[in-house]
């Protein structure tokens, strides 16, 4: 998921705006004011708010480090794409535990899953959580888009009255907000010094204990099996949405041609087509992410293709088509092309969810893989249709 699956292609205005942030920031801060609805402190009527704490700027909502079943269920739903685009907390200043004016200030995004990962990492600690308005997007993706950026941070510091709530002038930001936030400019415009904390919220206790020192491991973005598995549901949901129509078309076309009746053909050829497409989806959207480091090749499409080829061989062995006659040969050949092509395409899309692909690399990979995937798809479809009509 965006994970870095956000749109890469930022508009020119977006890009130039980011480059000139030091010049235009003061102007923006004045101009954007009427646009902001949620000035002041965030609402207390949100389900995860457990109380309130008096501050010089009013009562700040208090949250707990312990998640409820409702919070956990929300994470599960978001992982499956249910309500994921609108899974937010109100931006602004929250109290975790019982912070005072010397407590640390941790900055985060207003994607509810992000907010939950942060607070659950800090049991028994008192801190201020400054939630930026990232439109419900996680830290890294929002930073890539600039919504978790210098401008929003400076504006949110002012709007929350943070200068009056805490006596110090130091913020802890997640390291992955680095693409959006220019620490030296935040200091210049707000007076607050940015300290980049660890990548993972779960490393925060150790980072805080060490006096805001991160180990090299904390600074390195891994892409563990657990993380890759967590991304599978959302990949599957997206792949199924896209492939549903494809499966229906193949299924009903499967009934055409051949010596047997429509229904018999439908179950035989149409049914196998659905199984083959499902195999391609499993290859590209499940097996490739899970086995990622073990599959040969560097390009994701190549990895997906490799898995697809292996899978389709197993599938065809089980299918055992009649290779003495052309219809059987063509059908087998069509799936030898279609399954790896679809698996390669789906695996290519996993670049967006992965944590280590560069835009330049993805573009290079796509320049080679896309024409091959499309050609194999068209050829495979043609062969399969031919096999149906000469049968």
């Amino acid at each position, binding site marked *: 998921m965006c994970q870095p699956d956000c749109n890469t292609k930022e508009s020119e205005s977006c890009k130039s705006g980011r480059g000139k942030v030091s010049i235009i920031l003061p102007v923006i801060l004045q101009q954007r004011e009427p646009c902001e609805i949620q000035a002041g402190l965030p609402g207390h009527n949100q389900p995860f708010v457990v109380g309130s704490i008096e501050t010089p700027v009013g009562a700040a909502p208090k949250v707990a480090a312990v998640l409820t079943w409702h919070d956990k269920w929300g994470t599960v739903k978001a992982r499956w794409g249910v309500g994921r*685009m609108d899974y937010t907390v109100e931006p602004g200043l929250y109290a975790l535990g019982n912070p005072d004016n010397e407590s640390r200030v941790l900055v985060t995004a207003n994607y509810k899953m992000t907010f939950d990962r942060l607070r659950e990492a800090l049991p028994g600690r008192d801190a201020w959580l400054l939630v930026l308005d990232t439109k419900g997007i996680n830290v890294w993706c929002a930073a890539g888009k600039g919504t978790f950026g210098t401008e929003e941070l400076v504006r949110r510091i002012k709007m929350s009255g943070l200068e009056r709530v805490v006596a110090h002038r130091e913020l802890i930001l997640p390291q992955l907000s*680095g693409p959006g936030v220019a620490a030296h400019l935040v200091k210049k415009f707000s007076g607050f010094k940015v300290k*980049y904390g660890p990548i993972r919220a779960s490393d925060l206790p150790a980072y805080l204990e060490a006096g805001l020192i991160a180990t090299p491991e904390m*600074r390195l973005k*891994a892409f563990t099996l657990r993380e890759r598995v967590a991304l599978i549901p959302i990949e599957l949901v997206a792949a199924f949405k896209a492939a549903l129509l494809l499966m229906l078309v193949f299924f009903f076309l499967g009934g055409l041609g051949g010596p047997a009746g429509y229904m018999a053909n439908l179950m035989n050829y149409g049914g196998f087509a659905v199984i083959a497409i499902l195999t391609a989806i499993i290859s590209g959207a499940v097996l490739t992410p899970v086995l990622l480091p073990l599959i040969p090749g560097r390009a994701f499409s190549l990895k997906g293709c490799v898995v697809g080829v292996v899978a389709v061989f197993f599938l065809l062995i089980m299918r055992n088509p009649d290779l003495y006659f052309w219809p059987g040969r063509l059908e087998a050949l069509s799936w030898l092309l279609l399954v790896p092509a679809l698996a390669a395409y789906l695996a290519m899309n996993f*670049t*967006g969810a992965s944590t*280590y692909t560069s835009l330049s690399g993805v573009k290079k990979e796509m320049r080679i893989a896309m024409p091959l995937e499309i050609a194999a798809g068209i050829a495979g479809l043609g062969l399969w249709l031919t096999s149906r009509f000469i049968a």
Partner: protein
Amino acid sequence: MERMAYLKDVVTLDLNEEKCVDCGMCSEVCPQAVIAVNAIGRAWIQDRDACMECGACSRNCPTGAFSVEAGVGCAAAVINSMLGRSDAPCCGPIESCGQTVDQKKSSCC
């Protein structure tokens, strides 16, 4: 497990060492350990192929010593932009507050 590596020799990252002021912010924000600093804090690129072009180093460099065509390595997003669907949300809703339709279309992701 060994770190996963993406394609070789494609990355646009560059460092003008003459501009470096030895603050070390670049190596601190880099999530792929691409940049290291030596004993006096001078930055150098130790593993260019590991760079994912997130742009954190150049954004946090006070002197603009880094150049990189920053973006997100996401095939779906590249396809969307090729199809002219830059407004298709792939990771979230688009800000509508106070924006015109034109601005909405040009907004990233």
